[in-house]
């Protein structure tokens, strides 16, 4: 081996932890949002202000570079090399206004009822080589960058995230592209067709390693303790407890009105990400519902039917458009949704669903890649 080869070998380092990248991205989003807000203020434009944030929709939570050089967004469950192009963009927010609202008593009551009903029901034990399987249907807003500086085209892209998880939270995940989907607006479709119809949104993957849920499974189950950690920015999107507050607690921005704690939007982001962990939600679901019940501004918005045809009751954080659809009788989280807010730049009416994750039932299967009967 020559010297250059030795040097190259020395230069090989482990890829960055996704949680580390997420923290930096969150800080940049906060700065970007603050800058947009400031620019609007200077121009004396009225609210609402574009949040412009790549938000987490279910388990999809980060952009990563690809060989093709495009910025792409992948789910958080350990996928580093899926050849899929998605920049998830949702919504806008109304800075300030929603923070003044009192917590909705109706929403809090629903969430507390769901928390009480969600008392951990033991899953059937696993035999040798067996896994818990959960297939989650995701509708992702795929924002496909168009060639020639033609901007982007938004497509609501369906796929199934198949999870195989062991009791310790390790396992595998596979993405399967589902038929269907639709352009968000006719204008998106026209732009896409005019630029050669690049196929950027289809997601199919082999079995990939699942980011372990071990950190989430180790989180405290006292809602006051966990709620404080989340509010202080000490819990990241994969459930790790940080030794010091994360970026959202370090700067006051429109997304984070109080420099001493993370804003409600960010807290709900963290809760949403924790809720997508198939095993952890069994242990922490009730705790997380209680935490959401304490967040100011969360409102009851009535009944919703999820992508599997199940009916539940929904609560929304109007500041971010995040919706949780719950079955209060069983405490089951049926679906999370992201709604377009007033003044959004996507060209869709307020309240349009621009992303969702529908949580399928959990079954025991006889190995990785095996589907339930």
């Amino acid at each position, binding site marked *: 081996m020559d010297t250059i080869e030795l040097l190259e070998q020395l230069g090989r380092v482990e890829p*960055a*932890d996704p949680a580390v990248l997420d923290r930096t991205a969150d800080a940049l989003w906060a*700065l970007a949002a603050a800058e947009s807000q400031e620019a609007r203020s200077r121009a004396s434009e009225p609210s609402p202000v574009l949040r412009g944030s790549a938000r987490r929709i279910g388990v999809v939570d980060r952009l990563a570079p690809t060989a093709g050089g495009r910025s792409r967004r992948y789910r958080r469950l350990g996928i580093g090399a899926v050849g899929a192009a998605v920049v998830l963009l949702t919504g806008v927010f109304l800075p300030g206004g929603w923070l003044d609202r009192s917590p909705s008593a109706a929403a809090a009551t629903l969430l507390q009822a769901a928390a009480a009903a969600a008392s951990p029901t033991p899953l059937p034990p696993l035999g040798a080589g067996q896994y818990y399987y959960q297939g989650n249907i995701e509708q992702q807003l795929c924002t496909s960058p168009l060639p020639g500086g033609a901007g982007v085209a938004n497509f609501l892209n369906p796929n199934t995230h198949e999870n195989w998880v062991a009791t310790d939270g390790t396992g595998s995940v596979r993405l399967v592209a589902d038929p269907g989907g639709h352009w968000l607006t006719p204008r998106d479709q026209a732009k896409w067709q005019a630029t050669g119809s690049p196929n950027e949104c289809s997601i199919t993957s082999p079995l990939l390693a699942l980011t372990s849920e071990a950190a989430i499974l180790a989180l405290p189950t006292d809602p006051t303790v966990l709620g404080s950690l989340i509010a202080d920015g000490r819990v990241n999107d994969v459930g790790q407890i940080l030794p010091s507050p994360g970026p959202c607690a370090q700067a006051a921005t429109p997304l984070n009105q109080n420099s001493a704690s993370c804003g409600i939007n960010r807290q709900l982001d963290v809760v949403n990400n924790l809720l997508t962990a198939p095993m952890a939600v069994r242990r922490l679901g009730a705790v997380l519902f209680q935490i959401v019940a304490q967040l100011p501004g969360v409102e009851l918005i009535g009944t919703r039917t999820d992508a599997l045809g199940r009916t539940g009751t929904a609560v929304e954080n109007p500041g971010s458009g995040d919706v949780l659809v719950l079955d209060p009788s069983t405490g089951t989280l049926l679906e999370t949704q992201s709604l377009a807010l007033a003044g959004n730049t996507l060209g869709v009416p307020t309240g349009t669903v621009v992303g969702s994750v529908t949580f399928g039932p959990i079954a025991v299967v006889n190995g990785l890649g095996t589907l339930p009967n």
Partner: protein
Amino acid sequence: MDDADERAGTSDRDDPAAFVALFWRHGPAVHAYLSRRAGRQDADDLLSEVWLRAFTGRADRRSPEALPWLYGIARNVLSAHWRRQARPRAHAELSDELDPWADADARVDATAQRATIDRVLATLSKDEREVLLLVVWEQLTPAEVAAVLGLPQGTARSRLHRALTTLREATAHPPVLTCSDPMEA
């Protein structure tokens, strides 16, 4: 943001959201740059600092390509980090200056390879080492190296040329190692 946008550097300067896309495109590479030179833990800590500096200074970007500009910021952040820490370095004479080899050296295990690479790299100047490692580790062209270090392109090329020449000579003429067999004594 496509390649043309990035080369022009317009989207991420004018559009804060596009800048975040730039992060997802180059964040892992910048982390690797930091990790190679300062170790993974410090890289985790310094990554945000690099990107927040880049965000606030993006209007001043001169480099048409984003990555060399980002490496330049990362280099400055590393330099400040080391000054703050006043950490002991493997090469004491370089303790107050940025030398990427100083930390990488500590990662080489104690084998014959370490002796080889230590000996060869010790024949290079700090400046030559830095150019060489940007080319070998970061896969930059001499022009991009020049952008990172704020050098004329010719200077970067000549440093790389000297480094490679020195490496070839050092490899071709290794020092003679002598050892005695106690059984022959």
